[in-house]
C-alpha cells in the first residue's frame, strides 16, 4: 500500500509539473467551464427552478467526463512515442500509473470546482459544505474509473490512435446529453428517459444534484455512489489487464 501511494505520487508529480511550470495553460483551463456556467446558466435561469443549484453540479459532472478523456489523450501520445514503454519497464505499480495520471486532471478539476462555486455564490448558489465535499469525492472516484477506461481505449487505439478519437467523439456527447447534465431529461419523451435510465452517468448527476442541494438522505446518492464505484472498479480492472497483456 505504501508503494502504491508513493508510485501514485510519483506519477502525479510527473504529470502536474509541466502545468505548474507553465501556468498559462492552467489559467486557460479555468476559463472554459466558467464560460459554460455563465452563458448556459444565465440562459437556463428560471427554466429549471433555481438554476445555479441545478447547474453547478451538472457542470462539474461534465468536467469529470471530459477531464479523464484528456488524460487518456495524453497517455495515447506517450504510447505512440516511447515514454509509456519506458515507464512500463520500471517497477512502478500499474494501478498507480492509472490513478496518478487521472489525479492530475482531478486536481485541476477540484480547483475549477472551487472557483465555480465561489463565483456562483453571489449569484444565488447556496453552499452545503458536507454535500459538496461528498459530491466532489464521488466525482474523483468516477474520474479515476473513466480515466482508466480512457487509458484502455488509448492502449487499444495504438499504434494509429484513430479509434481513440472516434470513440471519444461518438460516445462522449450522447452520454453527456442523455445524463441530463446540461438540459433536463425529465421533460423529454419517454424513450429518451428510458435511454437516460441506462446511462450510469444519469445516476451520478442525480446524486450530485441531491448532494449540492444538501439533501443528504436522498436515495439517489446511494445509486450514484454505486455507479461511480462500479465504473472505477471496472476501469481499474480493465486497465490493469490491458497493461499486463502487453502494451
Amino acid at each position, binding site marked *: 500500500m505504501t508503494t502504491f501511494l508513493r508510485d501514485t505520487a510519483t506519477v502525479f508529480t510527473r504529470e502536474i509539473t509541466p502545468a505548474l511550470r507553465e501556468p498559462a495553460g492552467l489559467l486557460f483551463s479555468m476559463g472554459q467551464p466558467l464560460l459554460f456556467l455563465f452563458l448556459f446558466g444565465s440562459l437556463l435561469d428560471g427554466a429549471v427552478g433555481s438554476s445555479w443549484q441545478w447547474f453547478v453540479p451538472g457542470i462539474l459532472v461534465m468536467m469529470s467526463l471530459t477531464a479523464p478523456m484528456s488524460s487518456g489523450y495524453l497517455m495515447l501520445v506517450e504510447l505512440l*512515442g516511447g515514454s509509456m514503454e519506458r515507464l512500463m519497464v520500471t517497477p512502478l505499480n500499474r494501478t498507480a500509473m492509472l490513478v496518478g495520471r487521472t489525479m492530475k486532471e482531478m486536481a485541476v478539476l477540484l480547483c475549477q470546482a472551487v472557483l465555480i462555486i465561489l463565483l456562483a455564490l453571489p449569484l444565488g448558489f447556496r453552499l452545503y459544505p458536507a454535500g459538496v465535499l461528498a459530491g466532489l469525492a464521488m466525482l474523483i472516484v468516477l474520474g479515476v474509473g473513466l480515466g482508466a477506461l480512457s487509458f484502455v481505449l488509448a492502449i487499444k487505439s495504438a499504434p494509429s490512435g484513430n479509434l481513440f478519437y472516434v470513440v471519444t467523439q461518438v460516445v462522449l456527447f450522447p452520454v453527456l446529453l442523455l445524463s441530463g447534465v446540461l438540459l433536463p431529461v425529465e421533460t423529454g419523451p419517454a424513450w429518451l428517459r428510458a435511454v437516460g435510465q441506462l446511462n450510469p452517468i444519469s445516476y451520478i448527476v442525480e446524486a450530485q444534484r441531491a448532494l449540492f442541494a444538501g439533501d443528504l438522505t436522498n436515495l439517489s446518492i446511494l445509486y450514484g455512489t454505486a455507479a461511480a464505484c462500479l465504473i472505477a472498479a471496472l476501469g481499474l480492472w480493465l486497465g490493469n489487464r490491458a497493461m499486463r497483456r502487453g502494451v
Partner: protein
Amino acid sequence: MIHARGLTRVFKLKKEAVEAVRGIDLDVEAGQLVAFLGPNGAGKSTTLRMLTTLLPPTSGTATVAGRDIAHDPAGVRARIGYVGQKNGAGENFRVRDELVTHGRCYGLAPAEASRRADELLDLLDLRPLAHRKPGTLSGGQRRRLDIALGLVHRPELLFLDEPSTGLDPKSRAEVWSHILRLREAYGTTLFLTTHYLEEADSMAERVVIIDNGGIIADGTAEGLKNDLAGDRITITTATEQEAATAAGMTGEAAVEVEGTTVRLRVANAATALPEYLRTLEAIGVKVATAETARPTLDDVFLTLTGRSLTDDDIPT
C-alpha cells in the same frame, strides 16, 4: 544474467497466428556485451520485449537478472534497464524532470533521484540541456538522454533496442563511446539489438544472429566469420580460358567465376593465397591481380540463410 528456454511468442493477426519468436534458448553471463543481430521482422524486438516483461511469452520460460519474467516481473523490472527503440522521454517534460521521475519510479528517495539525475547529466554531456524539452534536442542528444534514463537506477543489466538507428555517423560514434565508457565504469551487462553489421562486428564480444524467429548462429564475431564464412580470395586473369582453368585448381574451396574474375572462399587467405598462386604459376596461368578480404557478418548471414542481411534492411 539471462537464461531463456523455449521462448515463443505468437501474434494473432486477423485470426491468423504468426509466430514472431519460435522457441529461443539463450544464456548470457554477467558482464557480457551481446549483440542481437537480424533483419527487420526477425523477432529481435519481440524477444527483447519478452525479456523486459513488456510482453508475456506465449510459451517458454526465462529468468532475467535472477528473476522469473512470468512469476516476478516486478523483480525483473527493478533490476534491469531498458532503452527502447523510440525515445523514452515524454514530450511535455523537461530533460532533468524526466530523469528525476525515472529515479523515483525505481523507488529512489527524492534527494537521491535528484543526485543521480545530475550525475547522469554530467556523465552523458547533457547538462546544458537540463531545462529543455526533448523536442528541442537533436537525434544524438535524445539518444543520450534515453541511455541516461536507462541507467538512473544503475541496473546490472541494460537492454538497448537499436540504440544507434537513425543517427548520423558522428552521433552513432558518440553514443557508442558513451555506452562503452559506462560499461567500463559500472560493469553493466549489455544486451542490444542492431541491424548495423559493422557495429555488431566491432563492438560486441558475442553476436547472436536471429532470423525468422529463431537463433541461427551464436558466437564471437571472429569465430562466426571463421567457421561459417571464411576469407575471400579474388584473382583476375588475362583471359576467360585461364580463369576457367584457375577455377579448376581450387580443390575443396567454394569457387565462382565471372568473366576473367575468380572468387573463392578459404579458411585462411593469408596462407592459402601464396599456395594458390604457386599452383597457377606451375601450370602456366598468368594472374593479373590478386586480393584477399576478411569476411563480414553479412557473409555469415548469407552462408546461413542464402540471403543478405542488407537486402531487405533499410534503416528506419
